[in-house]
């Protein structure tokens, strides 16, 4: 049976430590762009931790929110691509075929979460840093859009492994790099088509909500908000 990969983000666990950001960068050969590009808002991270101040000193409140591709069931990025570079995979992921991309950047505009990144130049790794590149993930050339894939290479690997041992996938496999690294287990990944998986249970939680759900994009990521405490300066 086909899977429906999804994620749950428990903001009450997330500490904003940034481990997921580097985990993703290392796993997916996401280039570092350097200072000049960073000044121009050209960071390439596939997952970012949004930081929002909600009030000021002496009672500052901060909200952290990891934002990655929401793998929408009804993704605005897909239909607008003239060359089917961004398309819907049979497992419901928002795929991105780098070789088909001609760089209209239309998908980037259409995505309400601004989680698609663009190769404004050819990526460079000062030798011998290129040795760190993950052979399972292609390196993207200039002019190509890229985005979070839910570590599709890991998904495929464990599916192949499972079929080799002719068994179903177990809970906890596959695991994207970001989820793997998350200390407080704020990120939970799994198969939404299996009602008993942890992610399904969290997705059903009354705390759960979708990011920008009102846009009708039907994201596959559920956000569980942080418990707001009353205890400020009674």
């Amino acid at each position, binding site marked *: 049976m086909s899977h429906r990969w999804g994620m749950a983000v428990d903001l009450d666990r997330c500490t904003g430590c940034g481990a997921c950001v580097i985990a993703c960068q290392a796993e997916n050969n996401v280039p570092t762009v350097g200072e000049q590009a960073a000044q121009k808002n050209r960071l390439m991270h596939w997952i970012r931790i949004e930081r929002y101040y909600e009030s000021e000193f002496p009672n500052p409140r901060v909200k952290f929110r990891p934002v990655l591709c929401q793998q929408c069931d009804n993704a605005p990025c*897909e*239909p607008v691509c003239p060359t*089917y570079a961004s*398309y*819907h*995979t*049979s*497992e*419901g*992921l928002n795929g991105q075929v780098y070789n088909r991309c001609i760089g209209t950047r239309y998908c980037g505009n259409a995505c309400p979460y601004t989680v698609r990144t663009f190769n404004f130049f050819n990526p460079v790794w000062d030798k011998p840093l290129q040795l760190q590149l993950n052979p399972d993930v292609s390196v993207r050339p200039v002019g190509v859009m890229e985005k979070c894939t839910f570590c599709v290479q890991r998904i495929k690997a464990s599916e192949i492994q499972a079929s080799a041992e002719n068994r179903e996938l177990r809970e906890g496999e596959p695991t994207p790099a970001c989820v793997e690294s998350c200390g407080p287990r704020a990120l939970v990944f799994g198969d939404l088509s299996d009602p008993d998986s942890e992610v399904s249970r969290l997705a059903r939680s009354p705390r759960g909500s979708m990011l920008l759900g009102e846009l009708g994009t039907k994201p596959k990521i559920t956000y569980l908000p942080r418990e707001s405490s009353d205890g400020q300066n009674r």
Partner: protein
Amino acid sequence: MNPENGVYVLCSEPGSTERAVSALLSAGMSRSDIVVISSVPLEQYAQSEKVRMPWLVFAGAVLGGIGGFLLASVTQKSYPITTGGMPVVTLWTDGIITYELAMLGAILTTSVVFLLTARLPARNRLPCDPQVSQGKVMVGIASAPDALRNNIIERLKGIGEIRP
């Protein structure tokens, strides 16, 4: 018919054009044989034959539209692409392609029909006289039957200079 048989008269002012035409008629030529060449359209001498252009254009539009629809829908099917259950063909968007190609069909038909009916590009079947561009009007017969030839020339004398 060979160009040598053509008989024409150059008229400098509207009146003479009128006389030339009547002269040819009286010489027994039918209106449809008479050729009036001018540097601007002269409605009164235009043969009142049917213009079928609109119908042809409409046909062209229909063809273009059908072509557009097939291009958009059928050919997509012939290139199977994984879309995870997302539609490949949507009528709404095919509508746009269909529309654009229908208009293209109409436009192309128009120009083609024009070229055909106006016999363009043309071999030099008819004489070409720079004076026409100076505003003169050339009236005559594309190919005069040898029997009538001299008679016609007779009648046209005095209206203007005769060609060839």
